[in-house]
């Protein structure tokens, strides 16, 4: 039986795709890999989503929903092989572990090594693709050239159809960025800090305009390629999974307001797919930075992501999430709840009547449950039990909706009361034995 299978495979075997022995992976590679993985891990993005592509004859494909391959000890997903080309940097940004003045082990990969490593990992299904970034070793152009070399090897030599995300190096020639864009799936330029003052303080070698320039280039490239696609179906796609960026939270005194408005601006002005937020990990000692003992502001990062989701999927504007007087997001409640408590005049909403857009404003109702409500209610009215089955989080939602006219919250409909009820039972303080006796 098994022999049959072997012959079944051999009969159709055509020429080998991978020339073996061109690049050897050795124990030295292991050392480099660990150094450069350590140097790359503070980059947040690991998405492999946004492109649906079948195998084009070599190796690999790409699924639109993205695939996570494992989860690291910090609970973050590992989907792409996230490495730096080199961690030897001419810049001296205060927040960065690879800054020039830091005494860390330095290492560099050759483009051939990176390509070979990616393919071998990919064949064993360890990873979904490659996320290649780099420190600036000599100058932006030579760094970008190396990245483009990796892209060419992956796409033309190995015929790789999987996912590749690369960093556009600010200051590199637009032609190099353009060449990279036609080979990569996603490109990103890291903002790092939301305000010009922040950048001046911590990364004086990276002025804001220098960061926005490649972003604009990529945006134009995407626009043009989409335009071409309308007339020529085989026109090459430029950065088909869109561009993203990342901002550090908590390295300077920047407010959530500054960060969120910057995000909104990036989404609107540069058509970004995604902005990532990264709670600042104190890796360096510097008078301008929080002390090394500071815990990363993980809750703040979480709230910013929630607000970001409201911007992208729930059609909120930054102005609605943070009014003129708010500088920071509320740490006790999620931003949608805070908005609802501030706008009680919109509630309670009747789930059988209000529009999809209004449903999305109810705390505890998500994109999926809103879609389900709209889909079912033409056929059958929705009662309270049905909401539970549709995935609505009634713990929060019940204060803000009615089903067929009936309200399921408690008797009082004021922001303060609801706020109290959402905190575990705080307005109803249960008396302890001691209090009863006393």
């Amino acid at each position, binding site marked *: 039986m098994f022999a049959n299978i072997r012959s079944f495979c051999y009969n159709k075997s055509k020429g080998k795709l991978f020339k073996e022995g061109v690049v050897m992976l*050795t124990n030295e590679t292991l050392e480099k*890999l660990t150094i450069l993985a350590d140097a790359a891990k503070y980059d947040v993005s690991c998405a492999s989503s946004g492109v649906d592509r079948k195998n084009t004859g070599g190796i690999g494909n790409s699924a639109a929903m993205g695939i996570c391959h494992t989860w690291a000890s910090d609970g973050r997903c590992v989907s792409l092989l996230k490495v730096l080309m080199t961690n030897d940097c001419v810049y001296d940004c205060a927040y960065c572990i690879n800054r020039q003045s830091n005494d860390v082990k330095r290492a560099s990969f050759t483009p051939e090594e990176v390509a070979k490593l990616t393919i071998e990992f990919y064949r064993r299904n360890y990873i979904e693709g490659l996320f290649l970034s780099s420190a600036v070793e000599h100058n932006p152009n030579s760094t970008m050239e190396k990245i483009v070399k990796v892209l060419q090897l992956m796409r033309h030599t190995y015929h790789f159809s999987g996912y590749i995300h690369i960093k556009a190096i600010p200051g590199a020639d637009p032609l190099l960025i353009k060449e990279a864009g036609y080979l990569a799936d996603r490109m990103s330029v890291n903002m790092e800090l939301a305000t010009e003052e922040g950048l001046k303080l911590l990364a004086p070698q990276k002025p804001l305009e220098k960061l926005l320039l490649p972003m604009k280039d990529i945006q134009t490239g995407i626009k043009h390629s989409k335009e071409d696609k309308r007339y020529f179906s085989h026109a090459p796609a430029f950065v088909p999974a869109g561009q993203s960026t990342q901002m550090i939270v908590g390295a300077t005194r920047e407010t959530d307001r500054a960060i969120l408005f910057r995000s909104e601006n990036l989404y609107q002005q540069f058509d970004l797919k995604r902005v990532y937020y990264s709670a600042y990990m104190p890796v360096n000692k510097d008078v301008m930075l929080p002390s090394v003992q500071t815990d990363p502001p993980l809750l703040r990062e979480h709230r910013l992501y929630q607000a970001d989701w409201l911007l992208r999927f729930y059609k909120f504007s930054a102005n609605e999430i943070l009014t003129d007087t708010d500088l920071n997001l509320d740490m006790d409640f999620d931003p949608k709840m805070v908005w609802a408590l501030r706008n009680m005049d919109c509630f309670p909403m009747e789930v059988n009547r209000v529009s999809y857009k209004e449903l999305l404003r109810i705390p505890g109702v998500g994109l999926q449950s809103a879609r389900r409500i709209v889909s079912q209610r033409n056929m059958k009215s929705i009662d309270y039990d049905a909401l539970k089955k549709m995935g609505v989080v009634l713990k929060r939602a019940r204060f803000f909706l009615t089903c067929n006219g009936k309200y399921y919250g408690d008797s009082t409909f004021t922001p303060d009361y609801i706020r109290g009820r959402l905190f575990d039972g705080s307005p109803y303080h249960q008396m302890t034995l001691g209090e009863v006796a006393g």
Partner: protein
Amino acid sequence: MIYLYDGSFYGLLTCIHEHYYVENVSEIYRTNYFMGSLIDESKFIETDEEKAEKVENAIRDKFTSVGYMDMYRAFLSDEINKDCYILDYIIHGFKIGAAMDRLYSESYVVKIRELSKRVGFEAHRFNGLLRFVEKKPFLYGTFEPDNDILPLIADHFADRYLNERIIIHDLKRKKAVIAYQGKWLVHQIDSSHELNQFHEEEVTETEELLQELWKGYFEHIGIEGRKNLKLQQSFVPLKYRKHILEFS
């Protein structure tokens, strides 16, 4: 009346056929999961391809493709009562047709969607969690999933490794998918099968180096200051770790 069948998809569809053309049935079970009943009589239904195809076509005709896939994925689940749920789902589906897709609170759809979601989620998970070992000339992957997800993941891997010869071995169900050039077939692997010896074969030195590379990378990619093993475990449950290189 209770119908029993051999566990194959067409076996189940034959039971549905008999429900409409011979005698109404209250419950359906796979023979090896049936506990016996004091009230109802039970009868074993022989799989009949012709009858099953008739039912399959009727379902495809009446249901949407989403509705059909939900039913099929539910069939692949390890739930003991899945056959009864599917019976209920099909009976209602024949009555209301495509409109069933728009209902979200009726118990017969909720149950099937729940099973479908569970199976689909596990299949998606293993698109990422499955690990291959190079044992020339094959890429060989083993796993023990809760549900019978082989037919759901085979297409993905057959396309991904178009020019490789791959074997995905479900050790729990003693089945394996063998794929090459985009085509794949499922084999039953009984204890005398050659694949069992292949499974024991040692890996080469090059392979060991690559495994070391991956483990080394994996160790270094987590950020120490954000360590959260509980979160990690909710994504990679212990039951799967035996076959995942970096955890085993």
